[in-house]
């Protein structure tokens, strides 16, 4: 089960649909460069429900065909420069969404259903630009009552970072249940962790409550500080200085390339 990051990156073939978590949930930043080295293009990203540094870097590296997201930003460091440039240039296809619509699409996949209904959205320009979303009249109402159906989102691959896995492949995700939702919905789930523990996480009710069972986990690899420069809940804080450094550098394509070539790959 334990293998290295480059081996994990091999799963990321050209054209796959790749789900990535929100910045505070556990981003496997350690996988970003192995994916870029592997150079699989035409990726369709699904941000659950928003994207940040990792998404911006994959876009900057030219690997991304489309982004489905509720937002892309670098937190306190502001807008995501390579994303914003790609939008302006029309270099990526946009599937702008709203957070609960991303969750609804994953939930449909989790349930084996073709869609989930969702309130809201009607009258939003998001809806006008999403030909895959459908408005119907609520069949359980007496007439009228339009409601949006969000089709199932079935990523080929989910990648995230978590504090620990056990040697049986169970991963501790704590209260970050969206990581489980992503894994349920995905064909392949790749996880990097701070550490591997010997005892099964399912052995005690306390640790089992926050465990994603190995059933949903394709591969686990150890990557200490693997979320850096993002923080990891319960483990270490975000390195805002480094994210600001990136944000400044990546304002231009040249600056981005220079950062990716020369910046350290691990925390100081």
């Amino acid at each position, binding site marked *: 089960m334990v293998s290295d990051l480059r081996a994990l990156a091999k799963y990321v073939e050209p054209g796959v649909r790749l789900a990535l978590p929100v910045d505070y949930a556990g981003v496997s930043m350690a996988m970003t460069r192995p994916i870029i080295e592997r150079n699989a293009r035409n990726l369709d990203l699904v941000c659950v429900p928003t994207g940040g540094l990792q998404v911006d870097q994959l876009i900057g590296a030219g690997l991304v065909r489309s982004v489905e997201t509720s937002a892309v930003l670098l937190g306190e460091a502001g807008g995501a420069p390579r994303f914003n440039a790609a939008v302006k*240039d029309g270099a990526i296809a946009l599937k702008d969404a709203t957070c609960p619509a991303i969750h609804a699409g994953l939930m449909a996949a989790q349930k084996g259903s073709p869609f989930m209904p969702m309130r809201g959205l009607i009258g939003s320009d998001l809806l006008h630009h999403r030909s895959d979303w459908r408005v119907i009249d609520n069949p359980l109402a007496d007439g009228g009552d339009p409601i949006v159906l969000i089709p199932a989102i079935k990523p080929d691959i989910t990648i995230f970072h978590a504090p620990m896995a056990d040697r049986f492949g169970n991963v501790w995700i704590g209260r970050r*249940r969206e990581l489980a939702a992503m894994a349920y919905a995905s064909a392949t789930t790749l996880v990097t962790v701070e550490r591997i523990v010997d005892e099964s996480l399912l052995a005690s009710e306390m640790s089992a409550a926050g465990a994603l069972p190995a059933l949903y986990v394709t591969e686990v690899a150890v990557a200490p500080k693997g979320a850096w420069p993002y923080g990891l809940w319960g483990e270490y804080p975000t390195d805002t200085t480094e994210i600001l450094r990136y944000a400044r550098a990546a304002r231009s394509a040249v600056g981005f390339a220079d950062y990716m070539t020369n910046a350290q790959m691990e925390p100081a």
Partner: protein
Amino acid sequence: MSEVHPREILICTIAKLLDGVRHVAVGASSPIPAAGAMLLRALRQQAGEKGPRISILGSVEHNFFTNGSAELFDCAGQGRIDAFCLGGGQIDGRGNVNLVGTGDYPQTPVRWPGSFGSAYLYYVVPRVILFREEHTPRALVEKVDFISTPGVSNDGVYRSGGPIALLTSKALFRFDKTRPGFDLQSIHPGHDLAGIKDATGFQFAHESQPEQTALPNPQTLALLRGRVYDEVAETYPDFAAQMRREIERPLSHAS
């Protein structure tokens, strides 16, 4: 005690707009709405009541959710969130909010992060306070370039929530969903109607002599500057420190 800081007027105004709510959610990067909610809680608790529950999104310390990032939206859909503060790159006279960008979509020349949860929360949270400090014709427009989420919905569309007010650094507007449009409720100290009109890209209703936004009374201000800033500092240390610095010196930027 020094004079009231302009942002303290905003905080106190938000506390008033939230009065009566059981549960308010605020964004992790929204210290002024959070301070308003905390002030309301402190005032209610001073009066021997329970005060509202405050959920601060994205905060590890003040995270009352245990079901991942979907729980906020579920919670709102269940009717358990009474109030929320929403900003916007552009806000127009019908209460439409644009969080996506300016110009023609999708190749917007200026791209903002995106719509986040607005295209759901704005529909189902009963009291949404639009909050944007910048009060300029660029921010408050006649018609947004992209409707992330609309101010009003057609008859027959499920909508249990929506905007009740728009608060800026210059004024407070109430939202009249029947018209639909904004009514100028009050003008903050140091501003006047002509200046508000110049700074606002949309038409709005108003009295010929609009009221001035009420200042907090000394007891409220003392509570804010004592207990509430202490509480604010736990989640927004930089903001709390800045406020405490600024109220200790003459306010040169009070307009």
